[in-house]
């Protein structure tokens, strides 16, 4: 595990359609919030990690140079980490590795995206090469819906039950977003609204899918010495896990998704977690699609395979359930992709430090944050705890 590492501060923008700021100004908003939260100045930072989904989302390449001023990165070592949808968690991992290695005491991690400025699905389609897979993946919803459909069939989940469970997730997350001051989509939806919404990529309907958001998130990672010197309640990194898979979508099983299973296992092993449903107090699962969220519950060992829809409908993963998932409203309500995994990380840190405000899970001590991406190819996990 290297040296102990803590998250000592977080900052988020107000996420949404942010045509009131240009891209670097959006980034600065998150960075300033993180500095204010931590009580440090830019000169205290030893290094900066930044990341986005494909840079071409906004038509500017290598944005860590564009954002050098907004991140106050001049005169410091700077890294860019880019792993498609899982970028945000990978940025957190990069900052963690940097501090854990002993090569830095304070690292600023920044994730950002301005999805409304381009055509997000057209950009994402460029993740696939242009002579085979690009023709069929249909942006992110296409592949992830195919994965959900495979999972539904594998476990013989009745269509009506599945649709009810997906609608339940959508309704409860949209309700939760009202308690999150940074969330993008704040609308009241009913089970019938979700179940009867227009099909986007069957089985996914309009209210089963995340929005295009503009947003940024900044998180400050510190060594034990620095965390103690700052004297604020930190969130300690208890475990990290990441796995990638083979490139071709049809080469590996996506219903029992090995990269998700193994990434979680790696993080659990480091954190000493054997029964995640009991030992985790809250999880921020990367959930751009309601159906896929259930598949993650199973891959992360929150329940057995094929069991998630029944447990969702019993409220096991609700705000007052045994393991609350995405009390922030999650990715479903806010998705500036390059920031999203880091937002999950920030939310997990806020939960274990008691700073999550109206969506605080009372007494949360251990939290999981997650992100995934690629053509169904990557999963990353970080587990945070209130104690070293």
């Amino acid at each position, binding site marked *: 595990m290297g040296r102990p590492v803590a998250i000592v501060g977080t900052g988020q923008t107000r996420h949404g359609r942010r*045509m*009131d700021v240009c891209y670097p100004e959006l980034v600065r908003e998150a960075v300033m919030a993180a500095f204010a939260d931590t009580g440090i100045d830019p000169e205290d930072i030893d290094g900066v990690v930044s990341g986005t989904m494909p840079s*071409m989302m906004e*038509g500017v390449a290598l944005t860590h140079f564009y954002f050098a001023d907004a991140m106050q990165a001049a005169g410091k070592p700077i890294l860019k980490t880019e792993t498609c949808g899982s970028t945000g968690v990978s940025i957190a991992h990069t900052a963690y590795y940097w501090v854990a290695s002993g090569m830095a005491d304070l690292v600023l991690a920044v994730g950002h995206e301005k999805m409304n400025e381009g*055509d*997000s*699905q*057209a950009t994402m*389609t460029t993740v696939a*090469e*242009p*002579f*085979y*897979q*690009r*023709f*069929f*993946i*249909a*942006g992110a*919803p*296409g*592949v992830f*819906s*195919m*994965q959900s*459909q*495979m999972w539904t*069939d594998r476990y013989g989940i009745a269509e009506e039950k599945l649709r009810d469970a997906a609608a339940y997730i959508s309704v409860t997350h949209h309700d939760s977003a009202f308690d999150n001051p940074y969330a993008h989509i704040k609308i009241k939806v009913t089970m019938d609204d979700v179940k009867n919404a*227009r*099909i*986007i*990529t*069957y*089985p*996914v309907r309009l209210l089963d899918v995340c929005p295009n958001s503009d947003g940024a998130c900044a998180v400050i990672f510190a060594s034990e010495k620095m965390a103690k010197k700052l004297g604020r309640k930190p969130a300690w990194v208890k475990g990290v896990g990441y796995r990638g898979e*083979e*490139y*071709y*979508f*049809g*080469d590996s099983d*996506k219903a029992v998704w090995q990269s998700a299973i193994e990434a979680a296992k790696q993080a659990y092993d480091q954190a000493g977690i054997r029964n995640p449903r009991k030992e985790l107090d809250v999880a921020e699962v990367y959930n751009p699609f309601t159906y896929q969220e259930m598949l993650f519950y199973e891959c992360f060992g929150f329940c057995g395979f094929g069991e998630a829809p029944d447990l969702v409908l019993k409220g096991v993963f609700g705000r007052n359930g045994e393991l609350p998932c995405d009390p922030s409203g999650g990715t479903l309500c806010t998705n500036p992709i390059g920031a999203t995994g880091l937002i999950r990380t920030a939310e997990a840190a806020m939960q274990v430090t008691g700073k999550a405000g109206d969506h605080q899970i009372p007494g949360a001590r251990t939290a999981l944050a997650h992100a995934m991406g690629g053509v169904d190819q990557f999963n990353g996990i970080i587990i945070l705890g209130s104690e070293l």
Partner: protein
Amino acid sequence: MSKEYKTIKTEIRLPYELAYGATWTRFFEGMQEKKIYGTKCSKCKRVLVPARSFCPRCFVDTDQWIEVSQVGTLTAWSYTNYRYFGQPVEPPFIGALIRLEGTDVDLLHLVGGFDLQNFDEVRRIVKNGMKVRAVWRDERKGHILDIRYFEPV
């Protein structure tokens, strides 16, 4: 009322010429002749399709070429009913994973050959595990869409 801020419309157009290499070239030449080629890994014995120059798991060269069946079973599917810029296939369409007979991975392609406008009808016809068969275009260019789609057998 919130103020409207100025925006700039911009566009990036860049030309590329990507090399297929020997393996993809042979695969696509096969498509032009209505043949689907795979390669077999000498170590794990899996038949991979489209043909690969190396096995992604064993990391050994796969030089045993096999013409594979044009019939397979449906593993997974999704009905795409939205648009994005530059979309290469006109929606609605059904993206699908298809396990061709005698192969060990799923081929990503389309399912079609019936009315795709009516989703209830689509839902009635399309079932996991159903047999599908390649339907070829008359005019073939050595392209993945030389197969128009896979239709129910």
